[in-house]
């Protein structure tokens, strides 16, 4: 019995697999290896086993332990604040734009997407000016005398505002493309049955776009865990380290001024990666199961 070997999957999946191996798998593997070492990027890594992890997780005296806990807590706050807004607002926009009677869809869509095109450094500069006590909108229009970046909860507000402003467009585009694929006949049938907008949204739109929803939810969450640019540029981690997110500590340790502690940084990055992995898997599992 000779079974014919099907080579077609190799052609379709193979090229990407090679790219993945070279540019993601190997470097990640090396990064994980580095997390078990003492490494300053210059000399060769020295194997120290689980020392880095032990310090980060259990050594309450160590600054690495405090940094990790504080960074992870602040990252979780950012995720909890930003992800719901980055899912719900784009979805509402996409649905509102689907409305037959709404005109100028292209213009509205463009206005909401443009902030996402502006590079993070320019975006942060704009918003720093906007929130500047003397020059910006908070002092001049709302008459607030507070330096927003230096006080909570304002520090989180300006980070979230920048994030939502720049991030709504991307998910909106995914929802728009997805809703455009939903069969128009489904809506027409529902309309003839007398279904209103809300009913149509929950009975047709939402179930039809559940895969894009899962995708954006998982990817937005994973992206939010990697947050770095916004708090760095808007608040520089302050006030009192309350917006100092984990990625900022990791980069400081690996590439900051002074001697690099890349082994420790890698261990923190691996732990962050595990957190992202578990949460993404949970989201995917729960949403996939509930939807069917």
């Amino acid at each position: 019995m000779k079974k014919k070997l099907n080579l077609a999957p190799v052609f379709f999946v193979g090229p990407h697999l090679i790219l993945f191996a070279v540019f993601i798998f190997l470097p990640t593997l090396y990064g994980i290896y580095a997390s078990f070492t003492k490494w300053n990027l210059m000399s060769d890594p020295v194997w120290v086993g689980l020392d880095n992890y032990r310090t980060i997780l259990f050594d309450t005296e160590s600054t690495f332990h405090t940094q990790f806990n504080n960074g992870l807590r602040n990252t979780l706050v950012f995720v909890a604040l930003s992800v719901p807004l980055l899912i719900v607002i784009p979805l509402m926009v996409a649905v509102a734009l689907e409305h037959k009677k709404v005109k100028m869809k292209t213009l509205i869509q463009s206005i909401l997407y443009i902030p996402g095109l502006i590079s993070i450094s320019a975006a942060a500069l704009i918003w720093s000016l906007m929130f500047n006590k003397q020059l910006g909108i908070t002092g001049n229009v709302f008459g607030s005398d507070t330096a927003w970046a230096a006080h909570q909860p304002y520090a989180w507000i300006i980070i979230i505002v920048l994030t939502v402003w720049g991030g709504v467009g991307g998910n909106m585009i995914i929802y728009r493309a997805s809703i455009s694929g939903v069969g128009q006949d489904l809506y027409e049938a529902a309309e003839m049955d007398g279904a209103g907008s809300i009913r149509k949204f929950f009975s047709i739109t939402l179930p039809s776009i559940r895969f894009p929803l899962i995708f954006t939810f998982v990817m937005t969450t994973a992206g939010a865990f990697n947050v770095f640019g916004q708090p760095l540029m808007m608040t520089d981690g302050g006030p009192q380290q309350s917006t100092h997110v984990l990625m900022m500590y990791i980069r400081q340790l690996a590439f900051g001024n002074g001697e690099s502690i890349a082994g420790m940084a890698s261990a923190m990055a691996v732990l962050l990666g595990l957190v992202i992995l578990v949460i993404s898997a949970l989201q995917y599992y729960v949403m996939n199961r509930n939807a069917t």
Partner: protein
Amino acid sequence: MANTVVTEPRINNEKGSRKWSSNISISKYIAYLFLIFLCVIFAIPVIFGITTSFRSQTEVVSAGFRLLPVNWIFDNYVNILENTSTAPIMLWLRNSLYIATFHTLLVVVVISITGYGYSRMNFRGRDTLFFTLMGISFFPGVVNLIPSYKIIDALGWVNTSWAMIIPGLAGMGNIFLVRQFMNNIPKELDESARVDGASDFRIYFSIILALVKPVLIVCALFSFTGSWNDFLWPVIVYTDVDKMPVTAGLLLLQDIYGNYRMIGQLMGSAILAIIPTLLLFLFAQKYFVQSINLNSGIKG
């Protein structure tokens, strides 16, 4: 539902909507209010950013918040374009355009082929392999930043466009998206084609590719913008000022112009840098709303 004729329900629908007109007009106003409110909030910083590039530095730091400049000046742009020795922005823009275009074309090829493999083909361990790759790709980029640089160095790609074009092709995000869209396409489509003797390549090329066009355009837009705006990686792999893409250049400008010393020039450079991505977006966006009806697709 597969066999509805396209034109007739439309006519019915217009009659239908007249019947429900009060309902529709209320929801229309709610939709409008929400969208206009959001547009105003989103547009103000953009307008402020653009007009800042037409302000003098004195005005930026002293005039308080004004949406429009007191005096429109064009010196910032003149200075940006004339300063070709330390800040060759047109050269950077050309580099970015070359990199982002090639990268995006390759991304579309790779993600559609790979997505087909993980969605429409059956082979042992397919889903396990796919989710293992997804899991690995969730590790934050800093874990593999230095090792990635070493690989690029070993390949001799430092200071070349390859360093920007190739590694990003390995990413999983777009493949996940494409795969999910392809999973939504009824299996009957390719099964009947397969019965007719069509090969996988033929099914991919003449059936599936057309059906996932909107999502491929979305991915292309994201890849282009992502490649265009990526700044951490180019700063690492480019030391040669003439070879840099524009974001790495903008970072140099931040050092040259200083954070608050020449805001107008900095803003102006950032505005120049978004023009290509903006044009691409304006071109691509009509495809998002172009309705493709997967159900009627069954008729083939």
